[in-house]
C-alpha cells in the first residue's frame, strides 16, 4: 500500500481512538500508541466493518473511516479497559 502521509496516519489514529479501538493516548506522558497496538486496533476495526483484516490503513480502511456514521464507539470504554487489563 502506498505509504501513508503523516496526516492520514494522524487521522487514522484519531479515528481509532474516537471509536474505542485504541485507548486515548496517555494524557500525562503523551505516550503515543505502540505499533503493535495500532495494528491490533486496525484489525479489530476492519473485522467490525467487514473488511479484510490486513492490520494496515489501506485504502478500503481509510474509505470506511470516511463513511457517515453514529458517533458512539464500536467498542465501549469498559470493554476496552477490560481487554487492556
Amino acid at each position, binding site marked *: 500500500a502506498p505509504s501513508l502521509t503523516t496526516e492520514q496516519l494522524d487521522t487514522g489514529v484519531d479515528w481509532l481512538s474516537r471509536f474505542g479501538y485504541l485507548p486515548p493516548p496517555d494524557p500525562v506522558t503523551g505516550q503515543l500508541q505502540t505499533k503493535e497496538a495500532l495494528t491490533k486496533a486496525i484489525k479489530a476495526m476492519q*473485522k*467490525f466493518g*467487514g473488511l479484510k483484516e490486513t492490520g494496515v490503513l489501506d485504502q478500503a480502511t481509510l474509505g470506511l473511516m*470516511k463513511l457517515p456514521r453514529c458517533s*458512539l464507539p464500536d467498542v*465501549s470504554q469498559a470493554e476496552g479497559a477490560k481487554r487492556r487489563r
Partner: protein
Amino acid sequence: SLTPQNKWNKRHLSWRVKTYPKDSALLGRDTVRALMYYALKVWSDITPLNFHEVAGSDADIQIDFTKADHNDGYPFDGPGGTVAHAFFPGERFTAGDTHFDDDEAWTFRSPDSHGMDLFAVAVHEFGHAIGLVHTSAMESIMRPYYQGPVGDPLKYDLPYEDKVRVWQLYGVRDSVSHTNQPGRPSQTPEPPNKNVTYSNHFNCFKVLFCGVLLRTGKYFWRLTREKHLVSLRPAQIHRFWRGLPTNLDSIDAVYERPGDHKIVFFKGLKYWVFKDNIVEEGYPRPISDFGLPTEGVDAAFVWLHNDKTYFFKDKHFWRYDDHLRRMDLGYPKESILWKGLPAQLDDAMRWSDGSSYFFKGKEYWRVPGSDMEVEAGYPRLIAKDWLRCTEMQSDSPDSETKSTETRVNEHHHPDHAENGFEVCSCTS
C-alpha cells in the same frame, strides 16, 4: 457516559423533540415528529416498552438537532463523518437523549444521494437509547455506518438480529404475556429460566396459525413460518390453552382437525378438543372414541396427500378419517411401512412445502409429498434447521439441559412420557 448501561427499568418512556433541523425547508416539524414517533414504534412494537410524546423538558428521551460542540462531550464534525448519537439508558440526566447533527441534510423518502435518511438514523439511535450497542452483523440496523434509507417507515421490519438482541434485554411484547405494569406484580409467574437451548429434545413443530409451536414439558415456544423464534422465553401451555388441567406436565400429541380446524390435544388416555385456544364443553374424553389403543399415542398428524389423520404408537400406526369420524379398516399397521422412520416417534407434522416431518429426540426426518419413504440425507438436527443454531450450539453437550429424569441410557430413547420432553402442537 457512553458505556452501555443495561436497560430501562421502567416500561413507559416519554419523548420530546426539543429542537428541530434549522433547514426545516426540507423537513417540516410535523414530519420530524412523525418520523420520531415511527422510529420509536419500531422498538415498542416488539418489546413491552411504551413511548409517549410530552411537551415538558423532563422527557426521558430529549431529541435535539444540533451541531459541532454542543456541550455533551461528543462534538459533531460538520457534514458527513459523525451524524448522530444517543445516550444509553440509566439514571443520568442525559440518559436516552438523542442528538442529530444539524450540519447534515436530513431527508425523508428521498434518494440516498440527497442526504441522510432521518428515519433510518433515528431507528439506530433509539436502539442505543434503549440499550443496544453497535454490532458488526451485516443486516443489523445497529451497524455503526450509515447504510442509506430503509424504506417506508410504515412498512419497516426490523432485522431479526436486532429483534433477538432487544428481546434479550426486555422480552417480547406478546398479546398473550402480561407485560409487567410498573409497580404491579406480574400476573404471569416467570417461567424458570427455560430459554430454548439447542440441545433440548423438541419432538415436534407444527404449523399453527402460520406460526409453529414447539414444546417441552409444560412450556412452549413459537416459531414464525420463516422458522424464527418469536421469543427466546417460553409461554406456559396451560396459560395459553385455556382448559387444560394445570397439573399437566406434558402433552403427548396434538393435531388440527381437518374440516373444522379445531385442535385436539392428547395426554395418556384422554383428549381435549379446542376451538381456538379455549377447550370445548365435555372434555376430556377417552381416546377410545377414536378406536385407539389404550396406551395413548406418540404422534399425530394429518397427511396433506389424503387429508387422513395418522396416529403413531411404538411400532404401529392407525389411519383415521376425521370427516367420517371413523378409523379406517385394516389398521393398525406396522410403522416400518414408513421406510426409514424410527419407532416410538416423538411427533409428526406436515409443512407448507407439502412434505411430512417426523421428530424424535434431537433429530427429524422428511417424507416428501405422498411418499412413505424418508428422503435421503435424513435424519438431520432439529436445532440447526429449525432453530437456526450454529454448528457449535446445535451439537453442544446437553449436560446443562439434561434434567435427572432425562439422564437415561443413550442407546435407547426413553419413552417420552418419562423425560418430560414432549412437544406437540397443531397444524393449519
